[in-house]
């Protein structure tokens, strides 16, 4: 399965004086789904344009199935083996059907096949009823669906998706996500998938890349990226809300004691005593209990006393910011929320296991 | 019908390019003559109505086969330089001086055109000149010379246009102008101008036909040009010229010169 399909070497994209993209090396392997996340302006869309052979990088080389891509007439041949869904659904000023059929028409597909494939995808994306509507009268989400249909009907070898579900309503998004997972696996389509939604990235991605400031800072299995972010920025970006600077006091066989302002924490880490480190805590790994309660889980080794500062419902969960001298963010279930009857000001104990913390060397 | 048949059977003849002045076209004379010639001979005539200067210039370059123009001095020079093969008088018409009905300069009825112009200049009456180097302009210039005046100043307008436009400007400006009688007659309905001076022999306007010299320019249609020139001086054409315009204006616009 590890046949490279699309490869990039030493790529640099400059707009005027500013370098927007700098990727020393990146490979998309056959059949994999590579998810890409990163803050706004990180260069994700730019990378997609370069990989889609739509924008020649200021320098660097691209390879498609091992062949060096030269920016000449052959490029059409490579482009036709790919399909892109742009962040903004730029539809042509014609009907939804014609928009979805466009790629096939450009490839000279016959009428029957076009009717067939386009019909199937419009159906799947829930816009079959809008087939003959003018594309420019579509709602935001409908337009995005049309733009998805336009790419999916092509059944490409490589699919480049730029936040393809951002404007979709949640039920559609979820069902499409599962559908897509199945379809992409079945067809073995190599996919690059830019998203701002961590769960989408986790669900679809075989690997996950994190881009910032034009560079790919980490590229690994999704769980690994989330569990062991490479840098403080990545950690913050992948949802580690609590990052505490401290100093290793002692370490023995992987169990370290880190001193923070006021408290000490027991964490799993290989760092030597004296090293300055960052302790990363994911909100969902923190358990809250009332002061009066007996220790609910003795294996949760670390306990910090604090006071609820802020409470926010997130649908099925609650986000709680606890003031422990420093802000500590916890995510608790609705159930716990009711059981603990939390309010702003409530005194709580936040506890977490030594294995839940992830320790980063401070630079 | 027989001639038409003959024309149709003979190999197609090369078109004749006739360069002429706008007055012959604007008066409608060409439209009366050319179809008859074409029917008779099977030639196609391309009549290009341009300024006299342009007509002579393209004649010099061999771009026309035959010229019908009215600028005797320039024509003589053209012949002297060897650009023309033949030159034949075809017809003439008259120039007149026109002006407003109330005639503020009081030149009405004067016998000498030059004197009339002198009076106009002294009174600084608006005078509209063709100013385009045409035959008419040249006659006007020779009259000024005769009057001993170098016309300059606000009152002397150089229009640089055809006769019709000059007459309209003259009417608008309530001025005076030198014009050929034919154009004046054709336009008089729309303009408030009347004939004030006429009959001076110096006001005669001679049209000649000139064959362009084919020895200088190989692509000139010598035979066709000759046929057309011959036609213009033929009895038939001369009669047509004499009758042309009589019905509409009660007087002829041109007087044939080739056959007295």
């Amino acid at each position, binding site marked *: 399965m590890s046949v490279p399909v699309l490869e990039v070497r030493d790529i640099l994209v400059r707009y005027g004086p500013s370098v927007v993209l700098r990727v020393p090396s990146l490979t998309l392997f056959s059949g994999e789904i590579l998810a890409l996340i990163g803050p706004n302006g990180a260069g994700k869309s730019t990378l997609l344009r370069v990989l889609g052979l*739509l924008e020649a990088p200021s320098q660097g080389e691209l390879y498609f199935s091992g062949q060096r891509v030269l920016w000449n007439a052959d490029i059409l041949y490579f482009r*036709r083996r790919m399909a*892109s869904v742009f962040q903004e659904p730029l539809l*042509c000023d014609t009907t939804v059907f014609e928009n979805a059929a466009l790629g096939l028409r*450009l490839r000279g597909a016959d009428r029957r096949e076009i009717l067939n494939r386009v019909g199937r995808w419009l159906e799947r994306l829930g816009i079959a009823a809008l087939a003959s509507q003018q594309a420019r009268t579509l709602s935001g989400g409908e337009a995005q669906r049309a733009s998805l249909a336009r790419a999916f009907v092509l059944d490409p070898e490589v699919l480049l998706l730029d936040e393809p579900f951002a404007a979709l309503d949640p039920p559609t998004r979820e069902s499409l996500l599962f559908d897509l997972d199945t379809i992409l696996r079945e067809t073995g389509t190599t996919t690059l998938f830019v998203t701002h939604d961590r769960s989408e990235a986790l669900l679809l991605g075989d690997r996950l890349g994190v881009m910032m400031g034009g560079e790919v800072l980490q590229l690994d299995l999704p769980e690994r990226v989330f569990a062991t972010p490479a840098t403080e920025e990545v950690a913050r970006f992948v949802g580690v809300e609590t990052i505490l600077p401290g100093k290793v006091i002692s370490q023995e066989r992987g169990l370290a004691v880190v001193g923070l302002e006021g408290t000490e924490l027991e964490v799993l880490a290989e760092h030597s005593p004296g090293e300055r480190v960052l302790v990363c805590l994911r909100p969902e790994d923190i358990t809250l209990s009332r002061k009066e309660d007996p220790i609910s889980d003795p294996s949760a080794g670390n306990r910090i006393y604090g006071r609820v500062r802020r409470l926010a419902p997130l649908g099925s969960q609650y986000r709680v910011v606890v003031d422990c001298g420093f802000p500590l963010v916890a995510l608790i279930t609705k159930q716990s929320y009711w059981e603990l009857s939390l309010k702003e000001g409530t005194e709580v104990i936040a506890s977490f296991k030594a294995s839940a913390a992830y320790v980063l060397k401070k630079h | 019908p027989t001639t038409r048949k003959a024309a149709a059977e003979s190999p197609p003849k090369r078109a004749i390019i006739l360069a002429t002045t706008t007055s012959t076209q604007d008066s409608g004379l060409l439209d009366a003559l050319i179809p008859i010639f074409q029917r008779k001979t099977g030639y196609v005539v391309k009549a290009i109505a341009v300024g006299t200067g342009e007509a002579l210039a393209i004649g010099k370059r061999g*771009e026309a086969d035959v010229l019908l123009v009215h600028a005797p001095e320039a024509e003589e020079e053209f012949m002297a330089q060897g650009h023309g093969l033949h030159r034949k008088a075809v017809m003439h018409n008259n120039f007149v001086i026109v002006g407003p009905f109330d005639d503020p300069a009081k030149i009405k009825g004067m016998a000498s055109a030059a004197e009339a112009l002198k009076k106009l200049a002294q009174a600084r009456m608006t005078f509209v000149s063709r100013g385009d180097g045409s035959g008419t302009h040249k006659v006007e210039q020779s009259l000024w010379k005769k009057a001993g005046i170098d016309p300059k100043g606000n009152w002397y307008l150089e229009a640089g246009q055809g006769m019709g436009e000059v007459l309209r400007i003259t009417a608008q400006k309530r001025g005076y102008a030198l014009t050929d009688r034919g154009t004046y007659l054709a336009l008089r309905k729309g303009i408030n101008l009347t004939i004030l001076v006429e009959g001076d022999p110096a006001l005669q306007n001679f049209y000649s036909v000139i064959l362009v010299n084919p020895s200088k320019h190989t692509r000139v249609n010598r035979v066709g040009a000759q046929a057309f020139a011959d036609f213009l001086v033929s009895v038939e054409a001369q009669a047509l010229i004499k009758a042309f315009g009589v019905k509409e204006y009660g007087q002829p616009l041109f007087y044939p010169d080739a056959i007295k």
Partner: protein
Amino acid sequence: MDLIWEGIRQAFWLILQGDSEVLRITLLSLQVSGSAVLISLFLGIPLGTYLALARFPGRNLAVSLVNTGMGLPPVVVGLFVTLLLWRNGPLGILDLLFTPIAMIIAQVIIAAPIVTGLTIAAIQQLNPQLRLQLLALGASRLQLFWLLIREARLPLLAAIMAGFGGVISEVGAVMMVGGNIKGQTRVLTTATVLESRMGHFDLAIALGVILLLLSFVVNWALTWIQQQGRPR
């Protein structure tokens, strides 16, 4: 003003009685200007699209030249074409001067820059991302060209109308290279000039009205296409 009414009356009279001379002149006008516009489209739209999308040094100069071309004086064009087609000129042997073909050549020189210049603006006004999107869908260069044309059809139709308007109404060049020869190269504009020079203002106006009607019919058809299904 009465002359204008008289002219309009006469125009309809000429049309109604199907005056063969007027019909011939009108058809020739349409043929000459129609052909000129068609040829200009074939030249101007690809060139304009190219200039709109390409980046090369001197591009701005090229665009300026095209835009200047929108104001090529018909008289100068006429003179230029005349000199070219003269018997003794470089293309003299073709013997095209004073033929409808010469008129078409002159009008193409007038209309092509108009079409090109307006095409440049029309294509540049499109969202630049759209081009990438179409390439991503697998459009070849030629297909991209057609699709962009389709997207910019509104201003492009205006460009066509401006080009057509420029040549159907033009008199300087056709007069010079066509010679206004009756039955051969006389078109509506040269006939109008002739009639007004002959003092037949009513007839001149009538011919002008016919010219405008012709122009209106053509433009009405193009406008109809242009304004089809415009958004609210």
